[in-house]
Structures are given as structure tokens and as C-alpha cells.
């Protein structure tokens, strides 16, 4: 510890009349001149002006103080400005402390005397504190520039293509056996009514042909370690039993003796035990459902292996653990849907021809179980349809919010039926409508023009569906009941299954609705609460396809901008550190660190802070019962001195 007391230079800013009119700066100057409190006190008209800064620089170079205190506006206004001036004069930026006498005294204290006394206390506090400051130096770190994208739906695909176009290596981890997500299970995207598989196909080809992109399908992320610039992602690939050489020629489908319900068709259609996800999938390879396959059950069948022209069947395939390193992770896990059978009163699962929206999308899909023929259970096309809005949404038992896109999808359902059966009677039962934007609104008006009946009810939550001889009767208390052939429940968007577990793996926050929480809802909606983990698509909140893609492009763009090959990333300067000689290894700091920046060194039996992850919140320093953790620039000593300065000013 140095015996010599640091020399402090004090600058007082008049801020035009903003401070000078309300605080007696002459009195302040007198208080701090002489008596060894400061090296000198200088009052300026406007410190942040070019002249002010020039004068400050001159005074600093002439006098060479150790520490600079600036009594002026809020540090949120000009801390960076004055740090620059001070650094320019050869003084470390951490040796500058501001006393906020404008926002905290001049502007809020009517009595000039009181304002002056308060300013003196604030300046005194800054003086007492600043002489204890240590130098702080900027820190940088090398970083990886590759990306891992969790989820291979449209958002994951677009993010991957953007990053790959900038030369980054991208790994997509997809839980299904092929890419495509939800959009591949859609027939058309409203309001433009563009063919969804046609939108996707070239994007899927682009992925397949891009050497920078690697797809690990039939896989999930089991752990994510590390931090921005330096992630290690652990992936578990489940055995597929079909090699990459498979081109999806479907020869094995014909000979496979096992027919089973298809998950891709949401149980409405069937597939064989060996099958691709859909024709033209990327990856193209099929997969074998081990639980249904006779070869695995009793060794009795080898039909697919026998007939495969490319020897692609591989019964010996094993689950595999893969480790991928990356600079950033993009979450593009898509969305879930409230299940129709969970919704009371709507008879789904009990009454035939009542479908949730995803189920209807499958029925209408050309890659669906009926080849795009919208049909009832008896095989006939429906001549009438009722779409029930807000099924399972805006209620206490279901989803409490409006997803904002289901009115569009409900209208789309009507439009799809209308295209197939122009004279079908279509009812859209609702209590409110959300059509955001000119094209969306025009689409709604088109439905009305085409004859869709928009039936408004105040009793949407108590709609009753009943099977009658001539169809399904839809009734509530306040409209003429209608009998229709098919009912579609327009269900809302929820976070997908597995979100809780993934959030835990990533150490990222979820919001109240269970979606990933944005770093900042306005300024940084595509960042999560963890640096380097981005949010693309619906995983942060419900949105339509166009928005999902925009978010994906923004996330990828941010990652590319931040992680540039050859350029180091800047680290937080005001981090915390643990005194090795004093740490008893009690681990209580590890439990409170929000960023998992502290780990236990089992050899030395002490806790260690990773200063690359630490964000400088200081809660470890507040917690440490052994006085070993220290928050740079906000040490106990500095704060205690500041308290003393405020009270003995």
C-alpha cells in the first residue's frame, strides 16, 4: 500500500446556467481548495464542449494529478467523454470519477443552499472513493466464428444460409430425421398463398449443396458449455440405421412389411417402418423406426437391405455423441400447438371430423396423407366447414395470450377449402379478429367477398360441438347454430416441448409465457439473456413465417458482425476476481453467479472466476462470507469510502 496520498484534480462544470444558477460553485470551490483535499480546483463553463475538453486536457498535462474528479452532469451523459479526455492526458480511465451534481442536485433542489450542501456531499463522496481506484485496462480475447443452430425449420435454415454465405461454418442440429420444421407441413403461406414446399425446396437444396453447412439430424443438444466466442456444444445423434448414401428412392418402402402411424402426418396417415420424412427431404436419407422394425424385434426381416440399390441400410448404426465448437449458438426451435383434445367442450378426439389447425394443414397438404385432397373421415370432401377461432387461447386453462397469427391461418383454412370446393359453406366463428397489416387485411376482405360467414359471438369460450345425423352442430347462446361437415379449431402457438430443458442447458431465461426471454424487448429482441445465444423464429414469441425468417437473418447477422475471423472480441472490464489466498472454497459464490462464470478448482480447493464470462454484477462480492471475492471498481473499500464521503461531507 502506497503511503503517498494520490493527488486529486477537481473540475466543476457550470453547465451553462444549468448548474451555476442552482449551486453556489464559488462556495464549492472554496470548500475543496486548500487543506490538502485536492491538488487544484478548476471551474469551467461547459466541460464537454471542445473548449472545455481542451482546457481540461491542458490542466491535466500541466499538473499531472493521479486522480480526476468531475462535478458535472450524470455519468450516463458524459462518462465516456471524460474518460477519453483523461486517457488522452495519460491518466487511466478508471482514475476518473464523476459527481452527478446536475441531475441529482441542481435540477431537483429548489433551495440553493441545500443544493450546494448536497453537491458538496456528492463531490466529497467522489473524492473519498476515487483515491482508492485501481487502473482498469481493456481486455480482448480470441474467438471462434462458427455457429451452431438448434433447429432446422425455416428459421434455422435461413440463419444457416446467411452465416454460411459469410464464410462461417455452420452446424444445424435437428430433432427430426430431416429439415423442414413446421413450414414443410404447411400447404400454402398466407396471405400471399405461396406454395410452402415450393418456397422451401430451393432453400433445402442450398443447404444440401453448401459446403459450409453440416446437418446433424435425428439429434438433440445435450449440453452447452462455455461462453460467447468459445462454446462447446454436445450433441447426441440417435441411430438412423440408414447411411448417408441413401437418396430416398423409396424402393425399400414397397417391400417393408410394417405399416405404422405417421408422426409427420400427425397420426392421420401411415408410413412404413423404414421411410423418409417426405419426398425430396434434406437429408434425403430414410430412417428405420427401431421399435416397429421386425429386424430388431425378432430378426425375421431383411427386406429393405436386400432391395436397396445403394447398400444404404445399416442395422449396426449406433447412437453417437458429437462435440461441436462454435462462437455462437442460435436457437431456432420453432413452436408447439395447444392440443385440440386438451380443449374442453370442443369434442376433439371424440367427434369425428373435428381437427386442430396443424391437423387440417396436413389434410390440405399435397405432401399430406391424402395428397392434398381435403376430405372427411368417410373419404368425401366436406361441403361445409366451421373454423373456431382462439381455440384454447385467451383462457385461464389454456394459453393466456393472443398468438396474433391464428386469425390469418383460420382465414387460410377457409381459402384452401374454397379453392377445392368453391361452393362450400364456410363459417369463421370468433369474438375478435386480428389482421395486422394491409395485405393481411385485404386477405380477410377477400374471404368475405368469397362468401365466408364471419360469425361473431360473445360466448366463444363456451362453444358446443355435438354430433348430429347430418353433421356437426356448432352452437353457443348468441347465434343461430350451424351444422357443418368439418370443424377446424384455430389453435394458438406455445413454446415447443423441451424448451424448459433447453433453457436449463443454455442457462438462458424464459419469460412468463415460457418462451425464451429476449435480452431487451425493444433493442435486442434476437438476443437471449446469455451473450452469444441468439433467438430466431418463434422461440421468443409467436410470429408468422416472414417474421420468423427476419429474426433468423437478424440473429445470424448479429453473430457474423460480432464474431469476425481474425478480430478479437472485447471483454467486460469491470469484472470480479477472487483472492486465492483468502478463498476457503465454500462455493457460495458459485451458487449465486447468474452467468455460471465461477467454477470450483478441485485441485486448489478454491473458486475461480472466468473473466471472459463475468459481466461485473458484483453479486459474488456481496455474497462472499470470507471476504475473498472482489468486484473491480466497486470494491467494498471504495464503496465504504464513498458512504463516508456522503455522510461526512
Amino acid at each position, binding site marked *: 500500500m502506497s503511503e503517498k496520498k494520490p493527488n486529486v484534480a477537481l473540475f466543476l462544470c457550470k453547465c451553462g446556467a444549468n448548474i451555476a444558477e442552482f449551486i453556489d460553485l464559488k462556495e464549492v470551490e472554496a470548500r475543496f481548495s486548500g487543506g490538502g483535499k485536492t491538488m487544484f480546483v478548476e471551474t469551467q463553463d461547459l466541460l464537454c464542449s471542445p473548449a472545455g475538453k481542451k482546457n481540461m486536457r491542458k490542466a491535466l498535462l500541466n499538473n499531472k494529478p493521479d486522480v480526476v474528479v468531475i462535478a458535472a452532469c450524470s455519468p450516463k451523459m458524459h462518462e465516456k467523454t471524460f474518460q477519453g479526455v483523461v486517457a488522452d492526458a495519460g491518466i487511466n480511465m478508471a482514475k476518473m470519477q464523476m459527481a452527478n451534481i446536475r441531475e441529482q442536485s441542481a435540477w431537483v433542489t429548489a433551495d440553493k443552499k441545500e443544493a450546494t450542501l448536497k453537491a458538496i456531499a456528492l463531490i466529497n463522496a467522489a473524492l473519498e472513493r476515487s483515491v482508492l481506484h485501481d487502473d482498469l485496462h481493456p481486455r480482448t480475447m480470441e474467438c471462434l466464428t462458427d455457429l451452431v443452430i438448434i433447429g432446422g425449420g425455416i428459421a434455422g435454415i435461413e440463419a444457416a444460409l446467411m452465416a454460411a454465405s459469410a464464410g462461417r461454418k455452420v452446424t444445424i442440429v435437428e430433432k427430426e430425421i430431416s429439415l423442414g420444421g413446421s413450414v414443410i407441413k404447411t400447404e400454402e403461406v398466407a396471405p400471399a398463398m405461396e406454395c410452402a414446399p415450393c418456397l422451401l425446396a430451393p432453400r433445402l437444396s442450398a443447404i444440401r449443396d453448401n459446403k459450409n453447412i453440416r446437418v446433424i439430424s435425428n439429434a438433440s443438444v445435450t449440453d452447452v458449455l462455455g461462453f460467447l466466442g468459445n462454446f462447446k456444444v454436445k450433441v447426441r445423434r440417435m441411430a438412423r440405421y440408414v447411411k448417408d448414401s441413401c437418396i430416398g428412392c423409396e424402393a425399400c418402402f414397397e417391400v417393408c412389411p410394417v405399416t405404422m402411424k405417421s408422426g409427420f402426418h400427425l397420426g392421420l396417415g401411415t408410413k412404413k417402418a423404414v421411410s423418409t420424412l417426405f419426398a425430396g427431404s434434406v437429408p434425403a436419407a430414410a430412417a428405420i423406426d427401431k421399435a416397429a422394425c421386425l429386424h430388431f424385434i425378432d430378426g425375421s426381416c431383411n427386406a429393405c437391405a436386400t432391395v436397396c440399390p445403394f447398400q444404404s441400410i445399416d442395422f449396426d448404426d449406433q447412437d453417437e455423441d458429437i462435440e461441436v465448437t462454435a462462437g455462437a449458438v442460435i436457437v431456432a426451435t420453432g413452436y408447439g400447438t395447444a392440443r385440440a383434445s386438451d380443449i374442453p367442450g370442443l369434442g376433439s378426439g371424440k367427434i369425428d371430423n373435428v381437427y386442430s389447425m396443424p391437423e387440417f394443414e396436413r389434410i390440405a397438404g399435397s405432401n399430406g396423407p391424402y395428397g392434398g385432397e381435403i376430405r372427411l373421415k368417410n373419404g368425401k370432401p366436406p361441403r361445409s366447414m366451421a373454423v373456431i377461432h382462439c381455440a384454447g387461447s385467451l383462457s385461464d386453462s389454456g394459453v393466456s395470450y393472443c398468438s396474433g397469427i391464428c386469425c390469418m391461418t383460420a382465414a387460410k383454412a377457409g381459402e384452401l377449402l374454397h379453392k377445392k370446393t368453391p361452393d362450400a359453406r364456410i363459417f369463421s366463428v370468433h369474438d375478435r379478429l386480428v389482421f395486422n397489416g394491409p395485405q393481411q387485411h385485404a386477405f380477410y376482405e377477400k374471404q368475405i367477398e368469397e362468401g365466408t360467414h364471419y360469425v361473431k359471438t360473445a360466448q366463444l369460450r363456451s362453444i358446443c360441438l355435438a354430433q348430429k345425423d347430418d353433421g356437426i352442430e356448432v352452437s353457443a347462446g348468441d347465434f343461430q347454430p350451424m351444422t357443418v361437415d368439418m370443424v377446424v379449431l384455430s389453435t394458438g402457438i406455445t413454446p415447443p416441448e423441451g424448451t424448459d430443458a433447453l433453457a436449463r442447458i443454455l442457462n438462458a431465461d424464459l419469460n412468463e409465457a415460457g418462451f425464451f426471454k429476449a435480452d431487451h424487448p425493444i433493442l435486442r429482441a434476437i438476443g437471449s439473456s446469455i451473450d452469444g445465444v441468439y433467438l430466431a423464429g418463434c422461440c421468443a414469441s409467436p410470429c408468422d413465417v416472414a417474421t420468423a425468417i427476419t429474426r433468423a437473418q437478424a440473429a445470424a447477422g448479429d453473430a457474423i458482425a460480432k464474431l469476425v475471423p481474425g478480430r478479437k472480441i472485447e471483454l467486460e472490464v469491470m469484472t470480479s476476481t477472487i483472492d486465492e489466498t483468502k478463498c*476457503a472454497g465454500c462455493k457460495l459464490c458459485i451458487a449465486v453467479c447468474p452467468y455460471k462464470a465461477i467454477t470450483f478448482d478441485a485441485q486448489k480447493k478454491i473458486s475461480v472466476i472466468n473473466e471472459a464470462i463475468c459481466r461485473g454484477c458484483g*453479486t459474488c462480492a456481496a455474497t462472499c462470507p470470507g471476504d475473498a471475492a472482489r468486484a473491480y471498481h466497486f470494491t467494498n473499500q471504495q464503496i465504504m469510502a464513498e458512504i463516508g464521503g456522503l455522510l461526512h461531507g
Partner: protein
Amino acid sequence: MAQKPKVAFYWCASCGGCEETIVDLEEKVLDVAAAVDIIFWPCAMDFKYSDIEAMADGSIAVSFVNGAVRTSEQEHIARLLRKKSGLVVAFGDCAWMGGIPALTNLKSKKEVFNRSYCESPTVVNPEKIVPLENSVYQGVPMLLPKFYETVYKLDDCIDVDYYLPGCPPTVKLVLNAVTAILAGTLPRRKSVLAPDKALCSSCDRNETKPDSMVIKEFKRVHQVVADPKTCFLAQGIVCMGPATRDGCDYPCVKGNMPCTGCFGPVDGADQGARMIAALGGIIDAEEEKGIDRVLSGIPDPAGTFYRYGLAASLLGSKRKEKAQ
């Protein structure tokens, strides 16, 4: 120096446990007695105050003073010994931090007297007679030392050179201190003569503590039989170990009882505040009701976290700056 160094022992507001630690030295006490010249020990020997007053200033090599300061007599003798001694060692928690007696600083002198002399269940005192500094009995003036409003620690009254923590200090600690004094190998003045690191560093239960520990419920030692191998905090039992100095060889923990903090805080720390900050941080509850429910497991925070050191707490010690 041909003469043996002179040593004094004194007890202020004390329970006598620190005296017993000297007895616990067993046969080693003879070595100590052989190496020094004990010239004052009210507990064990018949020297008088006047003997001390007659001595030259600084002629006592070391005075070991235990107990807190609550009466004018204790303060007087503490000051006297300071005058006559080269070194003064605050022996035990009461002298260092106020000890258990300092917990009465949570009450007023009036409340203390009322409780002890009037309301205590085993006391019958209908006239509510309490001790008085000045009274007369059969014509004879009876004087008692003044009983202070506040319990003070030793260094609130005199300059102290070294501190021996513990309630009482362990035998090992005392022997180390005496050896260092005789050999002249004491550390920097004003040191506490125990490691400046928390107990967890040597406790063998520490490795059972999970990295991300949270507490859903606090259990007290009379409510549950603790697992003898697992960290107490991990079992929801308050253990002061993380906020307490190492150096005692943790006999309490080895006896399956949690540490209560008698070796005091590390340098620069307020023991109770640090434990409150540490425990508060890991409570597993998000809103007021849930937090309060968990905290109901610590019915007496001041007594739990400042059991031995209230007078040394930031809020429990006199404003030295003002008094000077």
C-alpha cells in the same frame, strides 16, 4: 534478560472458560509457569490491585485480558494493565468482539436488570430490589462499580496488541501464541492469531457441498439429526463456517454440530452481515411470502449471526471516531 518475563491474567465480564483453557493446557501449563513469572491472576492467585499499581509502567511483558468490559472496575483495571504492560492480548471472543455478553446490547440496561433481578422465573423479588452503585447498609456506605449501559470490547477502552479468537481459544492456539511471544516471532501488531481464511477451507465436509446450492428450508439442530458426513448448509442447517476463521480443527463439526462462529470473522468482515448476505443469496424462493416462509427457520438472526461478536459489528460498537 536474566529475569523471567512478567505475565498477568485478568478477567473482565467473563464466564471463566478462558481461565479453564489455561488449565486445559494440562502438563504443558507447568512449562509455561516455568518460563514466565505470573504476577497477577485473580482467578488462581492472591495478588492485589495495589501490587499492579506499584509496578513500573511497561514492566509487565504481556497481559492476557479476557472478558468484555461492562463495569467501571473492569475498565479501570484494563487501563491499569495497559499502562503497566508491554503487550496486551485480548484473550477470547469477549475481549476481542464482546462475546456472548455483548448480545445484551440488544436490550437496555434497565431491561437486563429487570430480567435478571425481577422477572427471571427462579427469582423472588417482589420489592424489585436491584443493585445500586451507592447504598448504605447499617451505616456503612456500600459502593459497587458502575454498570454500563453498553457492553464494550476491550479495544473500545484500550489499545490492544493481539487478539486470540475462540470461546474459549483452543489449547493449540494458546500454546502457539505463548511460544511466539517467548520467541519474539509474533506477526504484525493488531493481528488476530488465527488463519485469515474461512473454516470451509479445512473442513472435510466441504467436498459434499454441491456447486449450485440452494436452501428450501432451514432446519434447526434440535429438529433433525444431521447426517454426519454431509455439509450442514447442504442439509439446510445454519453453519457459520463460511463466515468464520479457520484454525480450531473444528471439534464442533466433528461432533456433528454445526459451527456457531466462535473464531470470529476474517479480517475486514462483519461476521453477521457476511453470513446474512451469503445465506440470503441462496434462499430458494422468489417472492416475499415464500422468502418469509424459509426465513422463519431462523427465528433469531442477531443471536445466530452475532452470537460471539455483536460488539464488533458495524452496528454494535461505539463510534470511536466521535468518542475520540
